[in-house]
């Protein structure tokens, strides 16, 4: 398993109504141990996965939004969010959770993990990865 591959997780679904967001995250966490290059893309309703101030307690379901904030510790540092998807939903990057990673090379400076991209840039991202996992 010496080959290095670039994995892209394509997240297009809202959280809680279905389990895909949660179980996608479980793959990301396990996958982080494999030392491949990993990127996450959030588009369409997938952008809702990163909403700030999620509180699922009233529904009886388990909240899992805090896990996104821990992704930096797993060296998952590239969370691409499509700006057209945000705009259609009346959202801006400021409505999303602040997600950061610590850059060891710069005295553990906190850097943002969320990277806004356009549709065209996301199309290029897909074309630049070896494996696309869709959720």
């Amino acid at each position: 398993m010496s080959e290095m591959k670039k994995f892209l997780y394509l997240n297009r679904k809202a959280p809680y109504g279905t389990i895909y967001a949660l179980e996608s995250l479980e793959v990301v966490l396990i996958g982080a141990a494999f030392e491949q290059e990993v990127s996450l893309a959030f588009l369409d309703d997938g952008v809702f996965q990163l909403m700030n101030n999620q509180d699922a307690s009233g529904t009886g379901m388990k909240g899992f939004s805090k896990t996104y904030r821990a992704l930096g510790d797993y060296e998952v540092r590239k969370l691409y969010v499509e700006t057209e998807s945000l705009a259609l939903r009346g959202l801006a990057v400021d409505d999303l959770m602040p997600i950061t990673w610590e850059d060891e090379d710069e005295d553990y400076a906190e850097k943002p993990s969320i990277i806004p991209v356009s549709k065209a840039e996301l199309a290029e991202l897909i074309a630049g990865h070896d494996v696309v996992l869709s959720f």
Partner: protein
Amino acid sequence: MSTLHTVNKSPYERNALKSCLDHVSSGDTVLLIEDGVLAARKGGAFVSALRDAGCLVCALGPDLSARGVAADVAEGIHVIDYGGFVDLAAAAKRVCAWL
């Protein structure tokens, strides 16, 4: 003789809300639940369709909170809890789910 219509899908992903709104009668109520509450986020593309629905539009509070949109519900949408859902179902003559 009124109908309670439930919509549990995001209007950005599916046609359920549109189809529901195309089939409401006057005096009906539309209740957004589960991913359906995403339509109620202010600034979103479906807020005007809800305003023009011509009937009462409600959204389930616990589902709004889960998705982080409870503080930003568009004007004119009534937020209720599960008890309110029960009351709406009891008050209507029938419940129609747009799955």
